[in-house]
């Protein structure tokens, strides 16, 4: 189809930006432009993509929040999709098929413990809503304990479980039976957990919230509390699943088997949406699902294509033991980042993470945006989170090689150099409380950077810089 361009002229790009502004969001275009994140992804391969305008190779450290564990444009996954396409469409959600059966078998083979029951969902948010419904339906209880800073999605129940105001406040009132406790604080859970609690829901490693790792002790204690009161333990492994943290599932670090586990993102191979809710085959959950098989119907979750792709993803991850690579490369990246932190203590406050799910926390909120900008100039796409703007997530495809990790580290070092050029200006300003607040205000940052970017474009600076890099 000639419609889709692999390389874009300035004129093409302007047209696309104007259409995007017109129909999707002007604010989004502005935000992306201001931070030099106005890439247009054309070719996608391995750990990155080509920016269609400047023909630069960009390393993808966001990966749609962890969707591309098997690498982008993975030929084995594409082949599985094409094979399925010859004979199938998405299929009927009410009927079994060979693709579905095969995928279910493969999921059951890798499931932690007895977490082998399977319900399909269309995407992450839908799957979280399904998990919450399953817990409430099976226990007959309402109260859910969720974590502060948690991020579970944007649909009705998943949004209600989000532990930060940022994504919620414009849409209140949400479903009220959620209680929030600080992540990692077992005493806080003990104080409010009881016979009225349906579930405790958490990400074993908080992603969007700023990469906080739940330690083994904490997760084990949660399991004990859940056992004590018959509470369903729900692990949201949407971002951590399929090898990201150095184990196939993050729960396997602690050995804690959740009652309900939610998977999405990487299960899609980055090419065909799908999501899964897995549950322990205990009498309580089994019976509930059996006698309420229509409690959560998804039209497109568990489609024939989705299942064929999902099977190929599992095969690829298992065959190449990708979690081991994530652990190994994660350790190298972590070491490198710690060295960089040591050299730049006024910029980097802390490095956290597990496997290839790593967060860099800067010393000031405004630095997240500055660093995203500087990294983009040097060829890395990484973003700070809306929940926690001073934390930047690095979640590169876990197929990454050591050489590529070294390249990443070199770029990060360069980017810090670039950012330092801004600091003489922003540092003193940030010492004045009112200005510090202004600097940290994302809307003001965007407005200021958008003007800077506009001037750069007029003067031809952007183009000159990028062609140098290329």
């Amino acid at each position: 189809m000639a419609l889709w361009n692999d390389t874009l002229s300035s004129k093409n790009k302007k047209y696309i930006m104007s259409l995007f502004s017109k129909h999707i969001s002007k604010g989004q275009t502005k935000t992306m432009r201001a931070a030099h994140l106005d890439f247009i992804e054309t070719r996608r391969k391995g750990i990155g993509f080509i920016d269609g305008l400047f023909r630069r190779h960009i390393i993808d450290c966001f990966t749609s929040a962890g969707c591309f564990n098997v690498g982008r444009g993975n030929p084995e996954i594409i082949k599985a999709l094409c094979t399925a396409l010859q004979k199938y469409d998405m299929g009927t959600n009410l009927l079994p098929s060979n693709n579905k059966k095969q995928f279910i078998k493969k999921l059951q083979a890798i499931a932690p413990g007895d977490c082998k029951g399977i319900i399909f969902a269309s995407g992450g948010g839908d799957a979280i809503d399904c998990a919450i419904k399953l817990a409430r339906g099976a226990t007959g209880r309402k109260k859910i304990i969720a974590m502060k800073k948690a991020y579970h999605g944007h649909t009705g129940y998943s949004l209600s479980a989000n532990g930060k105001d940022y994504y919620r406040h414009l849409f209140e009132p949400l479903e009220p039976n959620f209680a929030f406790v600080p992540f990692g604080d077992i005493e806080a859970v003990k104080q409010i957990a009881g016979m009225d609690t349906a579930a405790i829901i958490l990400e074993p490693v908080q992603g969007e919230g700023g990469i906080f790792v739940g330690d083994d002790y904490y997760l084990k204690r949660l399991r004990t509390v859940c056992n004590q009161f018959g509470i369903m333990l729900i692990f949201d492994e949407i971002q951590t699943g399929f090898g990201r943290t150095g184990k196939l599932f993050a729960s396997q670090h602690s050995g804690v088997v959740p009652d309900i586990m939610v998977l999405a993102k990487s299960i899609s191979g980055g090419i065909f949406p799908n999501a899964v809710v897995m549950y322990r085959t205990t009498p309580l959950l089994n019976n509930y699902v059996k006698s309420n098989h229509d409690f959560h119907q998804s039209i497109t979750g568990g489609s024939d294509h989705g299942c064929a792709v999902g099977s190929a993803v599992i095969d690829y991850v298992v065959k190449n033991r990708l979690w081991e690579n994530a652990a190994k490369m994660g350790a190298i990246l972590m070491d490198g980042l710690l060295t960089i932190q040591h050299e730049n203590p006024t910029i980097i406050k802390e490095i956290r993470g597990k496997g290839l799910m790593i967060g860099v926390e800067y010393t000031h909120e405004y630095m997240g945006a500055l660093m995203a900008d500087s990294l983009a100039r040097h060829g890395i796409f990484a973003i700070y989170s809306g929940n926690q703007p001073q934390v930047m997530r690095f979640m590169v495809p876990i197929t990454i090689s050591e050489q590529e990790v070294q390249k990443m580290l070199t770029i990060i070092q360069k980017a810090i150099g670039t950012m330092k050029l801004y600091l003489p200006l922003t540092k003193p300003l940030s010492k004045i409380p009112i200005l510090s607040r202004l600097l940290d205000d994302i809307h003001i940052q965007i407005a200021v950077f958008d003007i800077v970017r506009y001037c750069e474009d007029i003067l031809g600076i952007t183009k000159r810089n990028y062609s140098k890099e290329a």
Partner: protein
Amino acid sequence: MSSQITALPIIETNPEGAYFYDSKGKRYIDCYSGAGMFNLGRHVKELSNTLCEQADKSDQGNFVLISQEKALLASKLVSFVPAPMMGVFFSVGRGEAMDFACKLARGFTGRAQLITIDGAYYGETGFSISLSDGDKKKIFGQIPQITTIPFGNIQALEEKVTRNTAAVITEIIQVENACRKASEGFFKIMRQVCNATGALMVIDETQTGMGRTGKKFAFEHYGIQPDILVIGEALGAGIFPIAATVFTKKVQKFMHKNPLIHLSTFGGHDLGCRVVYEALELYEKIKPWENAYAVGQYLMDKLLTLHRIYPDAIISVNGQGLVAALTLKNDDMANRASVKLAREGIFAVHAKVATDTILLRPALTISKHDVDDIVRAMSKIINSL
């Protein structure tokens, strides 16, 4: 959903046109169409080929980034919709698209109250369940500030919709509720009270849109236009999962002002957009609403005849275009009808709200010949119920 029918030994293979086959080679006329997703028929070859071909060139992309795929598809979609729309948000499924519509209405108006209609069905996610008929919201959790009014009740509209109302949410035809309809006056007044109070009118066309009722969208039957329109999986023609929330320029201000406040990882999937762009071109070329209108009339005539012959078994027949509802005496009868139809090579299930009703929603490209087969099977089994 009908437990008996899912317990039948049907392993789906080789979908094609108006049919699919089971692993033993038995043919079924698909009257379920993935809950109204296969409007262009099963396994649309052109789109399958495109998906395979483009999978090598594109993928999902990073959902926060500006993309040519999202931009061009959004632009094409707003011109496809026969109402002055400007903004688009892509989701992966219908529930998510409806949840977003509710959030958009609350966010834009700064008001909390959502007014829904009794007997409605919108999906399985939090907001959708809270707005839908049935017990699920009691078990799974109710989003607060939702008021339900009776379908077709003009007085209730005038009383309940106020300056505190963010949106009135409705279907044009309640498909899962035996294709229940309301008068033109009801929708016209709804539009008027929304205009007068500043509440937004949200129309869910996940079941009725993309040609199903004999028009591109069912709201065209009544000469009204929504502020927010929810389009379901039929958009992806059964090849790619996608749904969309489409809205006016006025409402879009919220999205300009609050970028990235609602996200969908798989919504607006770049590879999917490439396929769906072509699906829209196919819709424009085939104009399946024309066949849906003509063959729909034919189907309705035949079903009404059947109703006259079996007035005891069939309580009523409703529908429009190629969605028809046969209400039988009770749930059990609907369940048995579904199983017996499957034996006759017709795959149809009961509705979600009116569980005593069999829904027929075949591919919009279906022939009169196939409709004859459906009606023949129906008349054969009806005696034995």
